[in-house]
């Protein structure tokens, strides 16, 4: 069996996962139910087989979910025998930790508070995330092991040097690390790996008929969290999701790709980046992601 670049990326990610688990006291894996966290979970399974994954998974729940994703999350947790921690944005709103953006308001940014509160409450000192450097220009700058101070903040001007594969994960009490084993993977690498490994995914990644409206040049799924406003018209289209996020601000793409082969073909010829196609939250400003990350976002 010849090794190709997917084998190298896979082995590197497994190495990082093992290293963080060995160096940190209480790691957790951030599991959104999206494709990147699905791959991350698959790699964590491989890193410790035949033993169970030696840490819990955390879902930062905005309360605006696609039911298919929640079903998928629960199925994975059951099948793999995982401990699930849910950090709830709704709870943070109810407790007055964050302002209530209203029933239809965007909740992505509020996830930061729920995430940091849960990290503190559970004394997690490392949180694995599925973020990739090709997603965004701020992520492109981030270390594989990314230090967070007591306030959960990322300081892009003072990152720890990270040489060779000497990932060092020591933090003082109250501080934590974010660990990104998929840093060097591209969107296409993730899909090719999902196909090679048969990684299970939520059904919304595959083309299906869905009622949608067009808002800010994106197709939003009509449902509990998105209602037509000011003359917006409900249409029915074959769509799929290229990313999975808060249901109120994650756009679908028109697509007939209902198999992994078809999805990979589609991505290979796409002219638009995955966040550009599907995330309203990155459209506010030139440095939306950097600004959120500085506050402690994923």
């Amino acid at each position, binding site marked *: *069996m*010849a*090794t*190709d*670049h997917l*084998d*190298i990326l*896979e*082995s*590197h990610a*497994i*190495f990082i996962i*093992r*290293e963080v*688990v*060995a160096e940190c006291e209480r790691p957790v894996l951030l599991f959104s139910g999206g494709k990147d966290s699905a791959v991350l979970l698959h790699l964590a399974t*491989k*890193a*410790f*087989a*035949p*033993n169970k994954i030696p840490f819990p998974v955390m879902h930062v729940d905005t309360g605006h979910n696609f039911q298919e994703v929640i079903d998928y999350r629960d199925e994975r947790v059951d099948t793999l025998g995982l401990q699930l921690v849910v950090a709830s944005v709704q709870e943070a709103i109810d407790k007055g930790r964050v302002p209530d953006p209203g029933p239809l308001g965007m909740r992505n940014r509020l996830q930061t508070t729920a995430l940091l509160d849960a990290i503190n409450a559970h004394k997690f000192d490392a949180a694995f995330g599925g973020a990739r*450097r*090709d997603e*965004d*220009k*701020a992520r*492109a*700058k981030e*270390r594989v092991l990314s230090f967070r101070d007591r306030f959960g903040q990322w300081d*892009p*001007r003072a*990152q*720890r*040097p*990270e*040489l*060779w*594969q*000497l990932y*060092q994960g*020591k*933090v*003082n009490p109250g501080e934590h690390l974010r660990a990104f084993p998929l*840093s*060097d993977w*591209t969107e296409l690498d993730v899909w090719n790996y999902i196909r090679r490994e048969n990684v299970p995914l939520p059904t919304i990644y595959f083309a299906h008929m869905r009622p949608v409206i067009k808002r800010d040049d994106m197709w939003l799924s009509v449902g509990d969290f998105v209602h037509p406003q000011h003359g917006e018209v409900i249409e029915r289209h074959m769509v799929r999701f290229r990313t999975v996020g808060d249901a109120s601000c994650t756009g679908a793409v028109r697509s007939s790709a209902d198999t992994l082969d078809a999805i990979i073909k589609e991505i290979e010829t*796409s*002219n*638009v*980046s995955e966040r*550009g*196609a599907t995330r309203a939250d990155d459209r506010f400003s*030139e*440095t939306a992601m*950097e*600004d959120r990350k500085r506050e402690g976002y994923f």
Partner: protein
Amino acid sequence: MATDLLRFATIGSVDDGKSTLVGRLLVDTRQLFDDQLAAVEAASQKRGVGDLDLSFVTDGLRAEREQGITIDVAYRYAATPERKFVIADCPGHVQYTANMATGASNADVALVVLDATAGLKEQTRRHLCIAGLLGVRHLIVAANKMDLVDWDEATFRAVEKDVNDVAHRLGFDTPIIVPVSALHGDNVVEPSYLNTWYDGPTVLAALNSAPAGAWASSHDGARLPIQWVLRQPGGGRTYAGMINGSTLSVGQKVRLLPAGVDTTIVGIRGPRGSMDSAEPGLSVDVDIAEDTSAGRGDVLASEPFPTVTNEISATVCWFADAPLSAGQRLRLKHTSHSTPAFVDAVTSVVDVDQLSLTDAEQLVRNEIGHVTITTADPLSVDDYRSNRVGGSFVLIDEKSNATVAAGMIGHVTFA
């Protein structure tokens, strides 16, 4: 080791055009999505730097765009029909040398960008020196801004001579030196039609044919630093880690170090199942014949074995604000092993301009020098020049946990 993935780092002085060259490479090989290109155009116009400032493709931080410099490494990804690239676009400013070293430490190739009209600057020499110490052997040199001197051949030949001289003294392979204009795209992806005297490869052609996978192997001995112990259902244990050095095979005689127990590999399992042998760079877990108490920090090694020692003599690049001097206590991380360490002596510092060593008793921030270190635990070390994994370590401040130095076992010499 797969050769269809090349990791390269751009190095060189600030303002010589590294980020612009990477931007040019990505744009001209059509790696950018329409929305990403539109965002770069919008940001360029907002800051009044023309229609399209190519450096904004990688300079993504707010402060970088405001100041027009690269602060930290940007990682970008590109694919050509020949291979995939992981690009580390490193900062050029001396203040961010640690970030440059971060980007260069895993590189197969250094893409050196220099301003051909300004010659070889001290900062470019410093970067070349660090890249050389880090074990990068292969250089592709973009002699940039040739448009500013109307593609004057004499300007290029002068730079070419200086680069070849420095590369030789630092032990690099003979570099490929390409006259380019990153701004206009000449000889980056497309050959230039403006010059008639250069008939070598473009930067992209040189990258497509450069040797890959250098960092993981180059040594005769196989190494498996143990990261984690897995308990098998039958009651036995297997040892997990990533292989370096050379291929590890079932049936191979190995020694568990530092204990010194001889044993045999009886099983290897990789990410895709059982294997008879596994290459450097693969994460595996292995079963060995002897029942040992091996654990994290130990290494399974084949001949020639690493040296087991508490005293190491090394070349370090120092990153902290306060100087490094004898008597300091730090934590040292080598492969999967962390141990307290004392700096016994700082003996010399590298003069990056002269490429020579001078006696010294301390290293200030961003200086490179020779030190001797005593560790609390014995380490199983290789010379860095024969094995990058077994020969490298970092020093960590015990209070802040900051990484304050990159260390390479063995001493640097200059030709």
